């Protein structure tokens, strides 16, 4: 009995090591999402293209869509942009949230790289970004037809991320909405 008790520290050590080893696989820069399963926060902001007028959360309802947080100062957005163009061509509705940006350069960016967005919300002070808990562009939210956030990705959405995280859920939501 006493002999067995001698192995207790070893067992504890192995247990702790296993726990910490599992922790190594986690990405520490990834925050747990506070808004998945919640309604998209309400807002009233002007569109990046002024002619489209004022936008609100009601403009997001009715169709499954991606809401993509982007800015011209965001280097990774540059890398992500072709993927968004491609998704748009595939028929995915993409809505832009132009975050703390300058209108002129944002418009120029879209002229230069193509505009995958159905429309872009112009959040110059970052108020909607704050309500969404945005902490780094690009960020992408998948919202269902009723305007509820179903998935969030912080960082670039590329082919792999789309296939692994979005595709199935998108297809499922699309089916539900019909």
């Amino acid at each position, binding site marked *: 009995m006493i002999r067995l008790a001698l192995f207790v520290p070893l067992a504890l050590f192995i247990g702790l090591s296993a726990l910490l080893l599992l922790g190594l696989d986690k990405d520490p820069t990834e925050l747990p999402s506070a808004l998945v399963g919640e309604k998209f926060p309400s807002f009233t902001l002007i569109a990046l293209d002024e002619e489209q007028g004022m936008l609100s959360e009601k403009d997001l309802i009715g169709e499954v869509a991606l809401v993509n947080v982007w800015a011209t100062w965001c280097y990774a957005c540059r890398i992500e942009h072709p993927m968004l163009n491609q998704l748009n061509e595939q028929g995915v509705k993409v809505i832009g949230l132009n975050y703390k940006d300058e209108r002129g350069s944002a418009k120029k960016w879209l002229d230069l790289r193509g505009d995958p967005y159905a429309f872009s919300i112009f959040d110059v002070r*970052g108020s909607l970004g704050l309500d969404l808990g945005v902490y780094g562009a690009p960020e992408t939210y998948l919202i269902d037809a009723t305007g509820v956030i179903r998935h969030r990705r912080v960082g670039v959405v590329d082919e792999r991320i789309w296939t692994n995280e979005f595709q199935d859920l998108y297809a499922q939501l699309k089916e539900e909405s019909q």
Partner: protein
Amino acid sequence: MKICLLLLSAALSGFVFATSELVEFSDPSYRARYQQLITELRCPKCQNQNLADSNSPISRDLRNEVQRLLEDGLSNQEIETYLTNRYSAFILYRPEVNKNTYLLWVSPLIILLVGGLVVARFSRQGVSATKSQEIAPDSDERLNDLLSDEEDG
């Protein structure tokens, strides 16, 4: 001593930086609460910095937000709830006690208890071990025997 001072100044430099930013309040009592909140709230973008220490844009925005909410008359609790609703409990350096965090809160106590038990046990064993080590009167003889055996072999 010098190293201690150096470490201390390094540890405090963050607070110096934090106060270098000029923040105006309508009520002076807000200042202390503001300082407390921004040292207890964690920057969501940085790995391990509070809002006071970080000069990332998001931290600046959140400091402004804390200031605005204070001026709006919200309590500290309400401000923390407001921010966790957006940025999740990640941003709290002092997490609430709930079913997700109680293990975190009680684990130091458990470890202390287990450690105390282990120490108590081993120290008692130590006392009895020294007693049994008193040299038996015929040990010299036996030792010599053993040594000569070895030499022969």
